[in-house]
Protein backbone atom coordinates (compact mmCIF):
# COMPACT_ATOMS: atom_id res chain seq x y z
CA UNK A 1 0.00 0.00 0.00
CA UNK A 2 1.37 3.37 -1.02
CA UNK A 3 1.03 6.66 0.77
CA UNK A 4 -1.80 8.85 -0.53
CA UNK A 5 -1.28 11.85 1.75
CA UNK A 6 1.32 12.71 4.29
CA UNK A 7 1.08 15.52 6.82
CA UNK A 8 4.39 16.42 8.46
CA UNK A 9 4.32 18.59 11.56
CA UNK A 10 1.34 20.34 9.98
CA UNK A 11 -0.10 23.27 11.87
CA UNK A 12 -2.92 25.69 11.15
CA UNK A 13 -3.51 29.03 12.80
CA UNK A 14 -6.31 31.55 12.48
CA UNK A 15 -4.69 34.64 13.96
CA UNK A 16 -3.73 33.79 17.53
CA UNK A 17 -5.90 30.66 17.56
CA UNK A 18 -4.12 27.37 16.83
CA UNK A 19 -6.62 25.14 15.05
CA UNK A 20 -4.06 22.38 14.44
CA UNK A 21 -0.72 21.77 16.07
CA UNK A 22 2.09 19.56 14.73
CA UNK A 23 -0.01 16.86 13.05
CA UNK A 24 1.96 13.90 11.68
CA UNK A 25 -0.24 11.64 9.64
CA UNK A 26 0.01 9.26 6.71
CA UNK A 27 -3.05 8.19 4.72
CA UNK A 28 -2.44 4.82 3.05
CA UNK A 29 -3.91 3.73 -0.27
CA UNK A 30 -7.19 1.79 0.05
CA UNK A 31 -7.69 2.36 3.76
CA UNK A 32 -10.62 4.00 5.54
CA UNK A 33 -9.19 6.43 8.02
CA UNK A 34 -11.51 7.92 10.61
CA UNK A 35 -10.84 11.28 12.20
CA UNK A 36 -12.57 11.07 15.57
CA UNK A 37 -13.06 13.86 18.03
CA UNK A 38 -15.51 16.32 19.55
CA UNK A 39 -16.56 19.59 17.93
CA UNK A 40 -13.60 21.94 17.58
CA UNK A 41 -11.06 19.10 17.62
CA UNK A 42 -9.72 20.07 14.17
CA UNK A 43 -11.23 17.28 12.04
CA UNK A 44 -12.64 19.62 9.38
CA UNK A 45 -9.36 21.54 9.22
CA UNK A 46 -7.43 18.31 8.52
CA UNK A 47 -9.89 17.39 5.76
CA UNK A 48 -9.74 20.85 4.22
CA UNK A 49 -5.96 20.76 4.21
CA UNK A 50 -6.03 17.34 2.54
CA UNK A 51 -8.56 18.65 -0.02
CA UNK A 52 -6.36 21.63 -0.79
CA UNK A 53 -8.98 24.09 0.42
CA UNK A 54 -6.78 25.40 3.25
CA UNK A 55 -3.02 25.89 3.17
CA UNK A 56 -1.23 24.83 6.37
CA UNK A 57 0.39 27.59 8.42
CA UNK A 58 3.35 25.37 9.21
CA UNK A 59 4.72 21.96 8.29
CA UNK A 60 3.97 20.34 4.95
CA UNK A 61 1.39 18.32 3.04
CA UNK A 62 2.60 15.80 0.51
CA UNK A 63 0.42 14.32 -2.19
CA UNK A 64 1.80 11.69 -4.55
CA UNK A 65 -0.35 12.55 -7.60
CA UNK A 66 1.42 13.97 -10.63
CA UNK A 67 0.39 16.62 -13.12
CA UNK A 68 0.05 13.92 -15.78
CA UNK A 69 -1.95 11.59 -13.58
CA UNK A 70 -3.43 13.60 -10.73
CA UNK A 71 -5.31 12.06 -7.84
CA UNK A 72 -9.03 12.22 -8.43
CA UNK A 73 -10.34 13.68 -5.23
CA UNK A 74 -13.89 13.68 -3.91
CA UNK A 75 -14.77 15.97 -1.03
CA UNK A 76 -18.09 15.90 0.75
CA UNK A 77 -18.36 18.95 3.04
CA UNK A 78 -20.36 18.88 6.24
CA UNK A 79 -23.00 21.29 4.89
CA UNK A 80 -24.66 20.10 1.70
CA UNK A 81 -22.82 21.61 -1.25
CA UNK A 82 -25.56 21.36 -3.85
CA UNK A 83 -27.10 23.61 -6.50
CA UNK A 84 -30.48 24.72 -5.18
CA UNK A 85 -32.06 25.46 -8.57
CA UNK A 86 -30.97 22.34 -10.45
CA UNK A 87 -32.61 18.94 -10.46
CA UNK A 88 -30.65 15.94 -9.21
CA UNK A 89 -30.03 14.76 -12.79
CA UNK A 90 -28.82 18.21 -13.83
CA UNK A 91 -26.53 18.41 -10.80
CA UNK A 92 -24.97 15.05 -11.62
CA UNK A 93 -24.41 16.10 -15.24
CA UNK A 94 -22.78 19.37 -14.16
CA UNK A 95 -20.58 17.77 -11.50
CA UNK A 96 -19.43 15.15 -14.02
CA UNK A 97 -18.72 17.82 -16.66
CA UNK A 98 -16.62 19.79 -14.18
CA UNK A 99 -14.31 16.77 -13.93
CA UNK A 100 -14.38 16.09 -17.67
CA UNK A 101 -16.32 12.83 -17.38
CA UNK A 102 -17.88 12.10 -20.78
CA UNK A 103 -21.67 12.27 -21.04
CA UNK A 104 -22.43 8.57 -21.53
CA UNK A 105 -20.18 7.50 -18.71
CA UNK A 106 -21.63 10.21 -16.47
CA UNK A 107 -25.16 9.08 -17.27
CA UNK A 108 -24.43 5.45 -16.38
CA UNK A 109 -22.51 6.39 -13.28
CA UNK A 110 -25.25 8.78 -12.19
CA UNK A 111 -27.97 6.16 -12.65
CA UNK A 112 -25.99 3.63 -10.61
CA UNK A 113 -25.40 6.12 -7.81
CA UNK A 114 -29.05 7.17 -7.71
CA UNK A 115 -30.06 3.57 -7.38
CA UNK A 116 -27.45 2.80 -4.74
CA UNK A 117 -28.43 5.80 -2.63
CA UNK A 118 -32.15 5.31 -3.19
CA UNK A 119 -32.73 8.56 -4.98
CA UNK A 120 -34.66 6.96 -7.84
CA UNK A 121 -37.90 8.88 -8.34
CA UNK A 122 -36.28 12.12 -7.19
CA UNK A 123 -34.31 12.75 -10.39
CA UNK A 124 -36.41 15.75 -11.36
CA UNK A 125 -36.55 17.26 -7.88
CA UNK A 126 -34.76 20.58 -7.44
CA UNK A 127 -32.04 20.81 -4.81
CA UNK A 128 -34.08 23.27 -2.76
CA UNK A 129 -37.05 20.86 -2.67
CA UNK A 130 -35.14 17.86 -1.30
CA UNK A 131 -35.55 16.58 2.24
CA UNK A 132 -32.59 16.97 4.57
CA UNK A 133 -31.74 13.28 4.27
CA UNK A 134 -31.81 13.38 0.48
CA UNK A 135 -29.71 16.53 0.43
CA UNK A 136 -27.04 14.71 2.42
CA UNK A 137 -27.24 11.77 0.06
CA UNK A 138 -26.96 14.03 -2.98
CA UNK A 139 -24.01 15.78 -1.35
CA UNK A 140 -22.28 12.42 -1.16
CA UNK A 141 -23.35 11.31 -4.64
CA UNK A 142 -21.95 14.53 -6.18
CA UNK A 143 -18.60 13.74 -4.56
CA UNK A 144 -18.61 10.28 -6.10
CA UNK A 145 -19.80 10.95 -9.65
CA UNK A 146 -16.28 11.28 -11.08
CA UNK A 147 -15.12 8.02 -9.44
CA UNK A 148 -12.51 9.56 -7.16
CA UNK A 149 -9.40 7.75 -5.94
CA UNK A 150 -9.76 9.44 -2.57
CA UNK A 151 -12.96 10.44 -0.81
CA UNK A 152 -12.86 12.96 2.01
CA UNK A 153 -16.07 13.06 4.04
CA UNK A 154 -16.78 15.64 6.70
CA UNK A 155 -19.35 14.23 9.13
CA UNK A 156 -21.51 12.68 6.39
CA UNK A 157 -24.11 11.58 8.92
CA UNK A 158 -24.42 14.99 10.63
CA UNK A 159 -27.94 16.32 11.30
CA UNK A 160 -29.55 13.04 10.21
CA UNK A 161 -31.98 10.83 12.09
CA UNK A 162 -30.95 7.32 13.07
CA UNK A 163 -32.33 5.44 10.01
CA UNK A 164 -30.78 7.94 7.56
CA UNK A 165 -27.48 7.77 9.45
CA UNK A 166 -27.53 3.99 9.28
CA UNK A 167 -28.19 4.12 5.52
CA UNK A 168 -25.23 6.44 4.96
CA UNK A 169 -22.97 4.24 7.09
CA UNK A 170 -24.08 1.16 5.15
CA UNK A 171 -23.30 2.84 1.84
CA UNK A 172 -19.87 3.88 3.10
CA UNK A 173 -19.25 0.32 4.30
CA UNK A 174 -20.04 -0.94 0.80
CA UNK A 175 -17.57 1.54 -0.67
CA UNK A 176 -14.96 0.56 1.90
CA UNK A 177 -15.36 -3.17 1.23
CA UNK A 178 -14.73 -2.69 -2.48
CA UNK A 179 -11.27 -1.57 -1.45
CA UNK A 180 -10.75 0.57 -4.55
CA UNK A 181 -11.11 3.87 -2.83
CA UNK A 182 -9.21 5.55 -0.04
CA UNK A 183 -11.51 7.28 2.42
CA UNK A 184 -10.89 9.81 5.15
CA UNK A 185 -14.01 10.39 7.24
CA UNK A 186 -14.51 12.74 10.14
CA UNK A 187 -17.09 11.92 12.79
CA UNK A 188 -17.75 12.23 16.49
CA UNK A 189 -19.79 9.01 16.64
CA UNK A 190 -17.52 6.34 18.09
CA UNK A 191 -19.78 3.43 17.19
CA UNK A 192 -19.87 4.34 13.51
CA UNK A 193 -16.15 5.01 13.55
CA UNK A 194 -15.61 1.46 14.81
CA UNK A 195 -17.81 0.03 12.04
CA UNK A 196 -16.07 1.84 9.21
CA UNK A 197 -12.43 2.32 10.15
CA UNK A 198 -9.25 0.62 9.11
CA UNK A 199 -7.52 3.08 11.39
CA UNK A 200 -8.79 5.74 13.75
CA UNK A 201 -7.03 9.02 14.49
CA UNK A 202 -8.25 10.76 17.61
CA UNK A 203 -8.03 14.54 17.69
CA UNK A 204 -8.58 16.91 20.55
CA UNK A 205 -8.09 20.69 20.59
CA UNK A 206 -6.15 20.56 17.34
CA UNK A 207 -3.71 17.88 18.47
CA UNK A 208 -3.42 14.24 17.53
CA UNK A 209 -4.14 12.22 20.64
CA UNK A 210 -3.86 8.71 19.27
CA UNK A 211 -3.72 6.70 16.08
CA UNK A 212 -4.38 3.00 15.72
CA UNK A 213 -6.64 0.07 14.83
CA UNK A 214 -10.31 0.43 15.84
CA UNK A 215 -9.97 -2.03 18.71
CA UNK A 216 -7.15 -0.09 20.30
CA UNK A 217 -9.09 3.17 20.49
CA UNK A 218 -11.72 4.38 22.85
CA UNK A 219 -12.71 3.82 26.45
Amino acid at each position, binding site marked *: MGVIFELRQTGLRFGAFAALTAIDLKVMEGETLILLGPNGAGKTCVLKIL*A*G*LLPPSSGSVLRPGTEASPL*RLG*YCPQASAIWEN*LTITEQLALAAAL*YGVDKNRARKRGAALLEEYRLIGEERTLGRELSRGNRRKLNLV*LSLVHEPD*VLLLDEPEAELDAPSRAAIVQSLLRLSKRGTMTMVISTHHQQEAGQLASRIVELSSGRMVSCGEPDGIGP
Partner: protein
Amino acid sequence: MSAHPNPHTPRPGCVAALFRATVRELVRERAFLVLTLIVAPLFILVYRLIFLQGMIVYRIGMVDAGTGGISALLSTRLSAQLEENPELSYSDGSSLFDLRTYPTREAGERAIRNRDIYVLVIPGAGQARVTLAGDFSDPYYLLASTALRAALEDAFAGLVGLSSPLKFETSALGFSGKKTPFENYVPGLIVVSSLAGIYLFSLALARERENLAGVRYRLAGLPVSALVAGKGAAFILLSSLSSLLAFASAYALGFGSPGGMAADLCAGLAFCVLCSVAVVGIAFAVAAFARNSFEALSLATFPFFLTVFFSGSVYPLPEFPLLTIAGAEIRLFDFLPSTHAVRGLRRTLTFGLAEAGPEAFLSLAVLALIAAICLIIGGQFYKRRVLEER
Protein backbone atom coordinates in the same frame (compact mmCIF):
# COMPACT_ATOMS: atom_id res chain seq x y z
CA MET B 1 4.34 15.37 -5.54
CA SER B 2 1.75 17.77 -6.83
CA ALA B 3 0.85 21.01 -5.13
CA HIS B 4 -2.87 20.71 -5.80
CA PRO B 5 -4.97 17.55 -5.73
CA ASN B 6 -7.02 18.54 -8.78
CA PRO B 7 -4.85 20.46 -11.20
CA HIS B 8 -6.69 21.84 -14.20
CA THR B 9 -7.02 19.55 -17.17
CA PRO B 10 -8.78 20.61 -20.37
CA ARG B 11 -12.52 19.91 -20.16
CA PRO B 12 -14.16 20.72 -23.46
CA GLY B 13 -17.76 20.18 -22.33
CA CYS B 14 -17.38 22.06 -19.09
CA VAL B 15 -18.16 25.57 -20.38
CA ALA B 16 -21.24 24.32 -22.25
CA ALA B 17 -22.41 22.43 -19.14
CA LEU B 18 -21.98 25.55 -17.01
CA PHE B 19 -23.90 27.57 -19.61
CA ARG B 20 -26.82 25.11 -19.65
CA ALA B 21 -26.92 24.83 -15.87
CA THR B 22 -26.82 28.61 -15.41
CA VAL B 23 -29.64 29.19 -17.91
CA ARG B 24 -31.77 26.66 -16.00
CA GLU B 25 -30.91 28.26 -12.66
CA LEU B 26 -31.79 31.74 -13.92
CA VAL B 27 -35.07 30.56 -15.41
CA ARG B 28 -35.97 29.07 -12.03
CA GLU B 29 -35.29 32.35 -10.19
CA ARG B 30 -38.69 33.44 -11.44
CA ALA B 31 -39.30 36.59 -9.42
CA PHE B 32 -35.88 38.07 -10.15
CA LEU B 33 -36.01 36.90 -13.76
CA VAL B 34 -39.32 38.65 -14.39
CA LEU B 35 -38.12 41.82 -12.67
CA THR B 36 -34.92 41.81 -14.74
CA LEU B 37 -36.83 41.34 -17.96
CA ILE B 38 -39.52 43.93 -17.35
CA VAL B 39 -37.59 46.73 -15.68
CA ALA B 40 -36.57 48.44 -18.96
CA PRO B 41 -39.94 47.95 -20.73
CA LEU B 42 -41.60 49.28 -17.58
CA PHE B 43 -39.37 52.37 -17.58
CA ILE B 44 -40.16 52.87 -21.27
CA LEU B 45 -43.88 52.60 -20.59
CA VAL B 46 -43.65 55.07 -17.69
CA TYR B 47 -41.71 57.56 -19.83
CA ARG B 48 -44.28 57.15 -22.60
CA LEU B 49 -47.01 58.01 -20.10
CA ILE B 50 -45.04 61.00 -18.85
CA PHE B 51 -44.76 62.29 -22.42
CA LEU B 52 -48.25 61.15 -23.37
CA GLN B 53 -48.87 64.23 -25.51
CA GLY B 54 -45.97 63.03 -27.65
CA MET B 55 -44.02 66.25 -27.80
CA ILE B 56 -43.02 69.03 -25.49
CA VAL B 57 -44.62 72.30 -26.43
CA TYR B 58 -42.45 75.16 -25.21
CA ARG B 59 -44.79 77.69 -23.66
CA ILE B 60 -43.46 81.20 -24.16
CA GLY B 61 -44.96 84.45 -23.02
CA MET B 62 -44.79 87.95 -24.42
CA VAL B 63 -45.47 91.20 -22.65
CA ASP B 64 -48.10 93.01 -24.69
CA ALA B 65 -48.53 96.48 -23.23
CA GLY B 66 -51.48 97.42 -25.46
CA THR B 67 -52.97 97.33 -28.92
CA GLY B 68 -51.14 99.15 -31.60
CA GLY B 69 -47.87 99.12 -29.68
CA ILE B 70 -44.68 97.46 -30.82
CA SER B 71 -45.40 94.53 -28.55
CA ALA B 72 -48.63 93.63 -30.26
CA LEU B 73 -47.07 93.82 -33.70
CA LEU B 74 -44.07 91.80 -32.60
CA SER B 75 -46.34 89.24 -31.04
CA THR B 76 -48.26 88.82 -34.31
CA ARG B 77 -45.07 88.56 -36.39
CA LEU B 78 -43.47 86.15 -33.96
CA SER B 79 -46.53 83.97 -33.89
CA ALA B 80 -46.47 83.77 -37.70
CA GLN B 81 -42.72 83.03 -37.71
CA LEU B 82 -43.11 80.19 -35.24
CA GLU B 83 -45.81 78.57 -37.32
CA GLU B 84 -44.12 79.02 -40.70
CA ASN B 85 -40.59 77.87 -39.82
CA PRO B 86 -40.40 74.11 -40.52
CA GLU B 87 -37.29 73.80 -38.36
CA LEU B 88 -39.37 74.90 -35.38
CA SER B 89 -42.04 72.27 -35.76
CA TYR B 90 -42.36 68.54 -35.14
CA SER B 91 -42.67 65.94 -37.86
CA ASP B 92 -46.46 66.15 -37.81
CA GLY B 93 -46.25 69.91 -38.50
CA SER B 94 -47.26 71.03 -35.02
CA SER B 95 -45.27 73.92 -33.58
CA LEU B 96 -42.65 73.57 -30.86
CA PHE B 97 -44.04 76.73 -29.27
CA ASP B 98 -47.20 77.92 -27.62
CA LEU B 99 -47.19 81.72 -27.53
CA ARG B 100 -49.12 83.51 -24.81
CA THR B 101 -49.40 87.20 -24.02
CA TYR B 102 -49.37 89.00 -20.69
CA PRO B 103 -50.41 92.59 -20.06
CA THR B 104 -47.49 93.37 -17.77
CA ARG B 105 -43.99 92.15 -17.07
CA GLU B 106 -45.06 91.27 -13.52
CA ALA B 107 -47.86 89.03 -14.81
CA GLY B 108 -45.39 87.31 -17.15
CA GLU B 109 -42.83 86.78 -14.39
CA ARG B 110 -45.54 85.35 -12.18
CA ALA B 111 -46.32 82.90 -14.98
CA ILE B 112 -42.63 81.86 -15.08
CA ARG B 113 -42.60 81.26 -11.34
CA ASN B 114 -45.75 79.14 -11.69
CA ARG B 115 -44.10 77.22 -14.56
CA ASP B 116 -46.92 78.27 -16.89
CA ILE B 117 -44.29 79.46 -19.36
CA TYR B 118 -40.57 78.83 -19.79
CA VAL B 119 -39.50 82.12 -21.43
CA LEU B 120 -40.92 85.62 -21.28
CA VAL B 121 -40.22 87.93 -24.24
CA ILE B 122 -40.10 91.56 -23.12
CA PRO B 123 -39.84 94.10 -25.95
CA GLY B 124 -37.74 97.11 -24.91
CA ALA B 125 -39.21 100.58 -24.80
CA GLY B 126 -36.58 101.77 -27.28
CA GLN B 127 -37.81 99.18 -29.81
CA ALA B 128 -34.29 97.88 -30.59
CA ARG B 129 -34.00 95.66 -27.57
CA VAL B 130 -35.73 92.47 -26.57
CA THR B 131 -35.18 90.82 -23.17
CA LEU B 132 -35.68 87.10 -22.67
CA ALA B 133 -36.53 86.40 -19.03
CA GLY B 134 -36.82 83.02 -17.40
CA ASP B 135 -35.76 80.63 -14.66
CA PHE B 136 -32.16 79.74 -15.58
CA SER B 137 -32.34 76.60 -13.45
CA ASP B 138 -35.10 75.25 -15.69
CA PRO B 139 -33.52 73.29 -18.56
CA TYR B 140 -36.53 74.04 -20.75
CA TYR B 141 -35.70 77.76 -20.52
CA LEU B 142 -32.37 77.15 -22.27
CA LEU B 143 -33.93 74.96 -24.96
CA ALA B 144 -36.84 77.30 -25.60
CA SER B 145 -34.82 80.53 -25.61
CA THR B 146 -32.22 79.10 -28.00
CA ALA B 147 -34.83 77.90 -30.48
CA LEU B 148 -36.80 81.09 -30.07
CA ARG B 149 -33.97 83.46 -30.82
CA ALA B 150 -33.82 82.98 -34.60
CA ALA B 151 -37.57 83.34 -34.94
CA LEU B 152 -37.45 86.47 -32.82
CA GLU B 153 -34.70 88.00 -34.99
CA ASP B 154 -36.74 87.40 -38.13
CA ALA B 155 -39.93 88.74 -36.60
CA PHE B 156 -38.19 91.87 -35.37
CA ALA B 157 -36.42 92.49 -38.66
CA GLY B 158 -39.66 92.08 -40.59
CA LEU B 159 -41.42 94.45 -38.24
CA VAL B 160 -38.96 97.33 -38.41
CA GLY B 161 -38.05 96.68 -42.06
CA LEU B 162 -34.37 96.30 -41.35
CA SER B 163 -32.18 93.31 -41.89
CA SER B 164 -29.75 92.56 -39.13
CA PRO B 165 -26.14 92.27 -40.32
CA LEU B 166 -26.02 89.04 -38.31
CA LYS B 167 -28.72 86.53 -39.16
CA PHE B 168 -29.47 83.70 -36.79
CA GLU B 169 -30.87 80.48 -38.19
CA THR B 170 -31.92 77.38 -36.33
CA SER B 171 -30.86 74.07 -37.80
CA ALA B 172 -31.54 70.68 -36.24
CA LEU B 173 -28.83 68.07 -36.83
CA GLY B 174 -29.91 64.79 -38.37
CA PHE B 175 -33.34 63.85 -37.17
CA SER B 176 -32.97 65.53 -33.80
CA GLY B 177 -35.54 68.18 -34.64
CA LYS B 178 -38.15 65.55 -35.38
CA LYS B 179 -37.64 63.59 -32.17
CA THR B 180 -40.17 63.63 -29.40
CA PRO B 181 -38.88 63.81 -25.81
CA PHE B 182 -39.99 60.21 -25.35
CA GLU B 183 -37.81 59.16 -28.27
CA ASN B 184 -34.88 61.07 -26.81
CA TYR B 185 -35.07 59.00 -23.64
CA VAL B 186 -35.49 55.61 -25.33
CA PRO B 187 -31.76 54.88 -26.02
CA GLY B 188 -30.88 55.39 -22.36
CA LEU B 189 -33.80 53.27 -21.21
CA ILE B 190 -32.78 50.45 -23.55
CA VAL B 191 -29.35 50.43 -21.93
CA VAL B 192 -31.10 50.03 -18.56
CA SER B 193 -32.20 46.59 -19.81
CA SER B 194 -28.54 45.48 -19.70
CA LEU B 195 -27.82 47.15 -16.38
CA ALA B 196 -30.79 45.48 -14.68
CA GLY B 197 -28.85 42.21 -14.80
CA ILE B 198 -26.43 43.42 -12.11
CA TYR B 199 -28.83 42.28 -9.39
CA LEU B 200 -29.83 38.91 -10.81
CA PHE B 201 -26.32 37.88 -11.87
CA SER B 202 -24.74 38.92 -8.56
CA LEU B 203 -27.48 37.05 -6.72
CA ALA B 204 -27.02 33.87 -8.77
CA LEU B 205 -23.27 33.85 -8.13
CA ALA B 206 -23.58 34.71 -4.43
CA ARG B 207 -26.23 32.03 -3.91
CA GLU B 208 -23.82 29.38 -5.17
CA ARG B 209 -21.24 30.58 -2.72
CA GLU B 210 -23.80 30.66 0.08
CA ASN B 211 -24.94 27.09 -0.68
CA LEU B 212 -21.33 25.89 -0.92
CA ALA B 213 -21.98 24.66 -4.47
CA GLY B 214 -19.10 26.93 -5.47
CA VAL B 215 -16.77 24.65 -3.48
CA ARG B 216 -17.26 22.07 -6.21
CA TYR B 217 -15.68 24.44 -8.75
CA ARG B 218 -12.65 24.79 -6.48
CA LEU B 219 -12.37 21.06 -5.90
CA ALA B 220 -12.58 20.41 -9.63
CA GLY B 221 -9.78 22.95 -10.16
CA LEU B 222 -12.02 24.84 -12.56
CA PRO B 223 -10.21 27.82 -14.11
CA VAL B 224 -11.96 31.14 -13.59
CA SER B 225 -11.96 31.72 -17.36
CA ALA B 226 -14.20 28.66 -17.86
CA LEU B 227 -16.52 29.80 -15.10
CA VAL B 228 -16.76 33.34 -16.49
CA ALA B 229 -17.28 32.02 -20.04
CA GLY B 230 -19.97 29.48 -19.13
CA LYS B 231 -21.90 31.58 -16.67
CA GLY B 232 -21.25 34.87 -18.48
CA ALA B 233 -22.66 33.51 -21.76
CA ALA B 234 -25.89 32.59 -19.97
CA PHE B 235 -26.09 36.02 -18.33
CA ILE B 236 -25.48 37.77 -21.67
CA LEU B 237 -28.16 35.66 -23.35
CA LEU B 238 -30.70 36.73 -20.74
CA SER B 239 -29.57 40.32 -20.97
CA SER B 240 -29.98 40.31 -24.75
CA LEU B 241 -33.50 38.98 -24.33
CA SER B 242 -34.22 41.83 -21.94
CA SER B 243 -32.85 44.34 -24.48
CA LEU B 244 -35.00 42.86 -27.25
CA LEU B 245 -38.04 43.25 -25.01
CA ALA B 246 -37.05 46.87 -24.36
CA PHE B 247 -36.76 47.54 -28.10
CA ALA B 248 -40.09 45.82 -28.77
CA SER B 249 -41.79 47.94 -26.08
CA ALA B 250 -40.28 51.13 -27.48
CA TYR B 251 -41.47 50.39 -31.02
CA ALA B 252 -44.88 49.31 -29.77
CA LEU B 253 -45.17 52.65 -27.96
CA GLY B 254 -44.34 54.72 -31.02
CA PHE B 255 -40.55 54.93 -31.10
CA GLY B 256 -39.11 55.63 -34.52
CA SER B 257 -35.59 56.34 -35.71
CA PRO B 258 -33.82 57.32 -38.92
CA GLY B 259 -32.04 54.01 -39.52
CA GLY B 260 -35.11 51.80 -39.63
CA MET B 261 -35.94 48.98 -37.28
CA ALA B 262 -33.40 46.38 -38.46
CA ALA B 263 -30.43 48.76 -38.41
CA ASP B 264 -31.48 50.17 -35.04
CA LEU B 265 -31.88 46.72 -33.59
CA CYS B 266 -28.42 45.62 -34.75
CA ALA B 267 -26.80 48.77 -33.39
CA GLY B 268 -28.79 48.57 -30.18
CA LEU B 269 -27.94 44.93 -29.57
CA ALA B 270 -24.25 45.56 -30.21
CA PHE B 271 -24.20 48.26 -27.52
CA CYS B 272 -26.37 46.21 -25.13
CA VAL B 273 -24.36 43.01 -25.51
CA LEU B 274 -21.10 44.82 -24.80
CA CYS B 275 -22.72 46.59 -21.87
CA SER B 276 -23.89 43.24 -20.48
CA VAL B 277 -20.35 41.85 -20.80
CA ALA B 278 -19.31 44.68 -18.48
CA VAL B 279 -22.28 43.87 -16.23
CA VAL B 280 -21.10 40.24 -16.01
CA GLY B 281 -17.71 41.49 -14.82
CA ILE B 282 -19.39 43.77 -12.27
CA ALA B 283 -21.56 40.87 -11.04
CA PHE B 284 -18.50 38.65 -10.54
CA ALA B 285 -16.82 41.46 -8.60
CA VAL B 286 -19.93 41.94 -6.43
CA ALA B 287 -20.19 38.18 -5.80
CA ALA B 288 -16.52 38.07 -4.84
CA PHE B 289 -17.20 40.42 -1.94
CA ALA B 290 -20.64 39.05 -0.96
CA ARG B 291 -20.82 36.03 1.33
CA ASN B 292 -24.54 35.56 0.86
CA SER B 293 -27.55 36.68 -1.20
CA PHE B 294 -28.41 39.57 1.09
CA GLU B 295 -24.90 41.01 0.86
CA ALA B 296 -24.95 40.54 -2.92
CA LEU B 297 -28.20 42.50 -3.28
CA SER B 298 -26.95 45.23 -0.96
CA LEU B 299 -23.60 45.54 -2.73
CA ALA B 300 -25.17 45.41 -6.21
CA THR B 301 -27.14 48.55 -5.42
CA PHE B 302 -24.00 50.66 -5.63
CA PRO B 303 -22.87 49.76 -9.18
CA PHE B 304 -26.48 49.65 -10.38
CA PHE B 305 -27.30 53.21 -9.36
CA LEU B 306 -23.86 54.45 -10.38
CA THR B 307 -24.22 53.04 -13.89
CA VAL B 308 -27.86 54.02 -14.32
CA PHE B 309 -27.86 57.56 -13.02
CA PHE B 310 -24.40 58.89 -13.82
CA SER B 311 -24.42 57.62 -17.38
CA GLY B 312 -27.49 59.70 -18.24
CA SER B 313 -29.56 56.58 -18.91
CA VAL B 314 -32.71 57.83 -17.25
CA TYR B 315 -32.01 61.55 -17.21
CA PRO B 316 -29.51 63.53 -19.28
CA LEU B 317 -26.70 64.92 -17.17
CA PRO B 318 -24.07 67.52 -18.05
CA GLU B 319 -20.72 65.97 -18.91
CA PHE B 320 -17.81 67.24 -16.83
CA PRO B 321 -14.54 67.30 -18.80
CA LEU B 322 -11.62 66.18 -16.63
CA LEU B 323 -8.66 66.22 -18.97
CA THR B 324 -7.68 65.98 -22.61
CA ILE B 325 -5.43 63.21 -23.89
CA ALA B 326 -4.22 63.34 -27.49
CA GLY B 327 -7.07 65.63 -28.40
CA ALA B 328 -9.69 63.37 -26.81
CA GLU B 329 -11.66 64.82 -23.93
CA ILE B 330 -11.97 62.53 -20.91
CA ARG B 331 -15.10 63.19 -18.88
CA LEU B 332 -15.96 62.41 -15.28
CA PHE B 333 -18.18 59.40 -15.94
CA ASP B 334 -16.30 58.00 -18.93
CA PHE B 335 -15.14 55.09 -16.77
CA LEU B 336 -18.70 53.75 -16.69
CA PRO B 337 -19.58 51.28 -19.47
CA SER B 338 -23.15 52.58 -19.59
CA THR B 339 -21.93 56.12 -20.41
CA HIS B 340 -20.55 54.91 -23.74
CA ALA B 341 -23.49 52.62 -24.41
CA VAL B 342 -25.95 55.47 -23.87
CA ARG B 343 -23.85 57.97 -25.79
CA GLY B 344 -23.30 55.68 -28.77
CA LEU B 345 -26.85 54.41 -28.93
CA ARG B 346 -28.32 57.90 -28.58
CA ARG B 347 -26.16 59.16 -31.45
CA THR B 348 -27.06 56.21 -33.64
CA LEU B 349 -30.77 56.42 -33.00
CA THR B 350 -30.85 60.21 -33.35
CA PHE B 351 -28.60 60.88 -36.35
CA GLY B 352 -28.75 57.52 -38.12
CA LEU B 353 -25.89 55.03 -38.42
CA ALA B 354 -24.53 56.67 -41.58
CA GLU B 355 -24.12 60.07 -39.96
CA ALA B 356 -23.19 58.89 -36.47
CA GLY B 357 -21.05 56.01 -37.75
CA PRO B 358 -17.48 57.04 -36.79
CA GLU B 359 -18.50 58.42 -33.39
CA ALA B 360 -20.80 55.46 -32.70
CA PHE B 361 -18.01 53.03 -33.57
CA LEU B 362 -15.67 54.93 -31.27
CA SER B 363 -18.19 54.58 -28.45
CA LEU B 364 -18.51 50.88 -29.29
CA ALA B 365 -14.73 50.41 -29.23
CA VAL B 366 -14.34 52.22 -25.89
CA LEU B 367 -17.26 50.22 -24.50
CA ALA B 368 -15.61 46.97 -25.65
CA LEU B 369 -12.39 47.99 -23.90
CA ILE B 370 -14.18 48.88 -20.64
CA ALA B 371 -16.22 45.64 -20.83
CA ALA B 372 -13.02 43.60 -21.21
CA ILE B 373 -11.46 45.42 -18.24
CA CYS B 374 -14.58 44.83 -16.11
CA LEU B 375 -14.60 41.14 -17.04
CA ILE B 376 -10.91 40.69 -16.20
CA ILE B 377 -11.16 42.59 -12.91
CA GLY B 378 -14.39 40.81 -11.88
CA GLY B 379 -12.93 37.42 -12.80
CA GLN B 380 -9.73 38.06 -10.89
CA PHE B 381 -11.60 39.25 -7.78
CA TYR B 382 -13.76 36.12 -7.93
CA LYS B 383 -10.74 33.88 -8.42
CA ARG B 384 -8.84 35.33 -5.47
CA ARG B 385 -11.73 35.70 -3.06
CA VAL B 386 -13.87 32.66 -3.93
CA LEU B 387 -12.03 30.06 -6.02
CA GLU B 388 -8.84 30.47 -3.99
CA GLU B 389 -10.57 31.38 -0.72
CA ARG B 390 -8.60 30.50 2.40
